[in-house]
């Protein structure tokens, strides 16, 4: 059983469309992070959300942390081919802060 479930698993859209990726858990997290990974490389941090209900914006990317701190979402406005990649949510285990878990991943393909 995955501690962090992401949906959808795959997403293929046209340039200019909007999309939302979800990260859900039955457990409460002190914080959640979002990473983006290119093929053959390690993930790179996009944002960390800490406070329940928090919204953070990074250019066309909007991140939200659920009020109960059990879920998070990533919304991309007017997607571009450069947004293509694997998006991963991650967090320290609520039961052991030394364990750092990743979600199941969302593979995004933005077609020109």
């Amino acid at each position, binding site marked *: 059983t*995955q501690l962090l479930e992401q949906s959808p698993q795959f997403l293929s859209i046209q340039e200019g469309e909007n999309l939302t990726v979800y990260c859900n858990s039955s457990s409460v997290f002190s914080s959640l992070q979002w990473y983006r990974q290119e093929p053959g490389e390690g993930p*790179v941090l996009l944002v960390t959300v800490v406070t329940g209900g928090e919204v953070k914006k990074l250019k066309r990317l909007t991140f939200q942390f659920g009020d109960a701190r059990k879920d998070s979402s990533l919304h991309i406005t007017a997607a571009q081919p450069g947004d293509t990649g694997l998006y991963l949510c991650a967090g320290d285990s609520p039961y052991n802060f030394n364990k750092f878990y990743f979600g199941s991943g969302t593979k995004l393909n933005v077609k020109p």
Partner: protein
Amino acid sequence: SQTIHQWPATLVQPVGSPLSLECTVEGTSNPNLYWYRQAAGRGLQLLFYSVGIGQISSEVPQNLSASRPQDRQFILSSKKLLLSDSGFYLCAWKGGGGTEAFFGQGTRLTVV
């Protein structure tokens, strides 16, 4: 600044052969260190983590082992590789709770 080195980048090994992947971190002391395995287009599966020299925690039973002989060195090993050990292996270091994880470039292991 902190850097993390992981090698080799690619490896092709026959079934039954031993494995040793090495990861070293520079610019930080007493980091938490992690080994992950990733299937294509999917999330990262936590294999091992270490909070200090000689301290190894295993997440899933498997054909692999890990060691931390020095503060900034983390090694992933196997005595006899299986076909199912093929995958993309990533080493990461991290500070305390809620902090960013930094990754090596990864090792693409193919067991033939």
